[in-house]
C-alpha cells in the first residue's frame, strides 16, 4: 500500500471514529489502535489530529468537487443539474453518513480547529468553486436568477445539508431518496430566472 493509500485509510478510520465518539473524544492513539499501527508511525502520516482534520476536509471537498465538476460538464439544463447535485449529495449522505457528520458536527461546529490553514473557503475551495461555476453558468444561460451568491449558496447547501442532517437523526419519516424530487423542485423554483 502506498503512503497516499495508507493516508486515505487513516482518514476513513478517523471519520468513523469521529462519527461514533465525537472529534474531541477521539485521540490519535485511538485511530492508531483501530488501524493496528503504532502511535509513532501514525505521526509519520499526520503530525497532529488538527492536521488530520484539515486534510480530511480538503479530501472531502475534493471528492464532492470532482463529482460536481462532472455534472457541470454535462450538456444538460440547470434544472437537471440541480437534481443531479441533490442526488449526489443524498447518495453520499446515505452511503457515507460519516462524511456529512464530519462536515456538520466537526467542521461547521468547531471552527477553532481550522483557524490555522483552513480560513474562509481555503480547504473547501474545490467544492465551492464548482458550485460557483454551476451558478455562474446557469445565470449566463439565463436559466437561473442573477442574485447574490451566498443567498443562493445558502439556500441550496443549507437546504440539502439540513435534510441530510435530519435523516442522520432519524427524524425523516421517509427515505432520503424520496426527497430528491421535491427538494430539487423547490431549489429550482427558488433559483430559476
Amino acid at each position, binding site marked *: 500500500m502506498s503512503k497516499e493509500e495508507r493516508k486515505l485509510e487513516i482518514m476513513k478510520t478517523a471519520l468513523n471514529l469521529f462519527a461514533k465518539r465525537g472529534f474531541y473524544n477521539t485521540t490519535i492513539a485511538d485511530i492508531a489502535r483501530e488501524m493496528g499501527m503504532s502511535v509513532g508511525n501514525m505521526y509519520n502520516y499526520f503530525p497532529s489530529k488538527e492536521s488530520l482534520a484539515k486534510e480530511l476536509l480538503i479530501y472531502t471537498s475534493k471528492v464532492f468537487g470532482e463529482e460536481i465538476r462532472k455534472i457541470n460538464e454535462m450538456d444538460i439544463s440547470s434544472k437537471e443539474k440541480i437534481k443531479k447535485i441533490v442526488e449526489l449529495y443524498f447518495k453520499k449522505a446515505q452511503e457515507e453518513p460519516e462524511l456529512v457528520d464530519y462536515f456538520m458536527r466537526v467542521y461547521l461546529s468547531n471552527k477553532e480547529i481550522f483557524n490555522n490553514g483552513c480560513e474562509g473557503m481555503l480547504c473547501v475551495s474545490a467544492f465551492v*468553486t464548482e458550485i460557483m*461555476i454551476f*451558478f455562474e453558468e446557469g445565470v449566463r444561460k439565463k436559466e437561473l436568477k442573477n442574485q447574490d451568491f451566498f443567498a443562493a449558496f445558502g439556500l441550496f447547501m443549507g437546504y440539502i445539508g439540513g435534510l441530510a442532517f435530519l435523516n442522520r437523526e432519524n427524524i425523516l419519516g421517509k427515505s432520503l431518496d424520496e426527497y430528491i424530487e421535491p427538494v430539487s423542485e423547490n431549489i429550482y423554483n427558488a433559483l430559476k430566472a
Partner: protein
Amino acid sequence: MRSKPKLLWIDAVSCNGCSHSFFNIDLSFLDNFELLYHPLLPSGDFKIQNSDILIVEGAIKPNFLRLGFDLNELISKLFFKAKTVIALGTCAVYGGIFGEGLVFNKTSKGKFFKCKDKVINIPGCPVHPEWLFYILNMLKENKKIVLDELNRPVEIFSYTSHMGCTRNEYFEWKVDAERFGEKEGCLFYYFGCQGPFTHSSCNKILWNEVNSKPRAGTPCFGCTEPLFPKENLFQTETFMGIPANIPLGVSKRAYLTLSGIAKSLTNERLTKKLIKCENEDKQKDN
C-alpha cells in the same frame, strides 16, 4: 537624404477625438512628414492622391458625404493609392460608436478585410498620442512593425491595461475600492474596471506621462476592444456575484479557485486604509 513620407489624414464618421489626443505631443514631429491633408491642421487642399501613409480617423458608413465624395468610395480611392493605411481609433478599427471599422465590423469582417495586409489598426477612444507617435516614427524610419491577428502593433497591444496598474496589489487580494476617485482598492470587482481583459498599454505608457483612468480612480472602459462601448461602464457585470468577464488567459475554474483563496487569506495590511484622511472621522461624525 530620403524624402519625407507623404502623410494624408482624413476624418470619416468621427468626433476628431483622436486628432485632439494626438495634438498633445509636440507637433513639430510632423515636420518629418509631408502633410498632404489634415481636417484640422494647416495643410494643402484635399485631393485624391498617392500617399505613403493614409490615416483614417473614424468609422465608415454608407451614404455619408465627406470631402465631396461618398465616404466609402472616398476611402476606397485613397486606400489603393496609399502604401500603408492606419485605422486610427476604435471607430476606424471596429466601428466603435459611429459605424463600421475598415477591416473589422465589431467582431466580424469589415469592408476592407481582404486588403488587411496594408492596414495597421490602432484602437482606442481616443488613441493614446504616444501610440500613434511610435507607429509614425517606425514607419518614417522604415522599421518593421509586428502586428497581431487583429492587425494591432504587438508592442502596444500585447499587454492589458491591468499591467502596470497601481491597484494590482488590491486586485491580488480582492480588496475593493469603496468609491470612485479614491486612491486605494481595486475597481474590478464592483466598479466596472475592464483592465484585466482589455488589450492596451495605458498603465505602461501613461497619459500625459502622469496618469491613467484606473490610477485616478475611474474604471478602464475597455475602449480598445471590438465591442466598445458596452453598457453600464461603471458597474461590473456579474452572474450570481461572479464577474462575467475574467482576466485573459486563465480558465474560469482556475480564476475562481485563486481568487477564492486570496479572499480567504485576508491581507490585514490592505483591508485597512493605508493613508487615513484626517477629516474622515469628522466627516463620518457629521
